[in-house]
């Protein structure tokens, strides 16, 4: 009897652990595709990329200091970005400044997408070689950063933006723009 208690105890402990982890996985934790969020509270990395519509112009994060703004990585190859697009237009209508990064795209495709569906961005950096994407630790699109007035990254969201996500993560930084 005594002998059985130790293995039984180990079994129950392990079963409990597995059950706990399964439960957490159900709530979206321990996703092997998730990588820890770096960057929160750090200064926004600087880049200088040509503008999507006007290659003579350069887009630089430092130019937007002074008030909170969003940096949105997208590409015409990314279905979630198309899904997210109408919501970005809504944010624009509320006066939220969004800078786009057209990532790993063809210039003509990116331009056509924005011409046909509307352009929610104050400026769009064109990044076919992942220069800015790697610098910002981006590994999928869409990905959206919130940079505060001092140029510090405050929020990073992976996946499409929508009203729920906005209220949960972003809204408090734009209280004047509900």
């Amino acid at each position, binding site marked *: 009897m005594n002998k059985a208690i130790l293995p039984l105890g180990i079994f129950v402990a392990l079963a409990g652990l597995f059950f706990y982890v399964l439960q957490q996985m159900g709530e979206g934790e321990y996703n092997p595709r998730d*990588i820890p*969020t770096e960057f929160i509270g750090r200064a926004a990395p600087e880049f200088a990329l040509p503008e999507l519509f006007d290659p003579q112009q350069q887009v630089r994060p430092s130019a937007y200091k002074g008030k909170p703004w969003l940096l949105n990585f997208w590409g015409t190859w990314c279905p979630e970005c198309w899904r997210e697009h109408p919501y970005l237009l809504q944010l624009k209508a509320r006066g939220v400044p969004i800078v786009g990064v057209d990532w790993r795209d063809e210039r003509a495709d990116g331009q056509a997408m924005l011409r046909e569906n509307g352009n929610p961005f104050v400026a769009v950096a064109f990044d076919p070689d992942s220069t800015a994407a790697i610098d*910002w630790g981006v590994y999928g699109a869409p990905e959206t950063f919130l940079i505060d007035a001092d140029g510090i990254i405050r929020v990073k969201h992976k996946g499409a933006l929508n009203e729920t996500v906005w209220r949960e993560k972003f809204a408090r930084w734009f209280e004047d723009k509900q």
Partner: protein
Amino acid sequence: MKRLLLILLLTSLSLGALATTIEVYDFDNPAQERTFKELTSELRCLVCQNQDIADSNAELAQDMRHKVFRMLKDGKSKQEIIDFMVERYGDFVRYKPAFEGRTLVLWIGPFVIFVLAVIFMLRAIRRARQQEERRELSAEQITQAADLLERPSDKSTD
């Protein structure tokens, strides 16, 4: 017609494969190339499961290889490049985590478990031996047993 289509399909597929797999890097010296190979096999492809960026053809992995190459060309050291990637993608990007307080369990854990396993095994073996010794019989018991064993055979010869 079907066959023609198939041939066309196959050639276009293989051309596609060629277009994505061949990358030519022009290194300054063999040491730089070695560092490049080390780095790309130590950095994880973030969008694939369990592949390093040397092995993966995911677009992000290609771009990370380019980035490593450009940084090497700029004279950055191996450690500087690893630090750059960790700063952006976290420890997760490293296949070989740094040896530090936070990762101690990761590095030492398997050895601790191994040593514990050996200790348990030795104890189990010793216990089994002791039981065997206890099973051994004294001289008196052996003669008794022999008597018992011989008796029926004596009877059968009668």
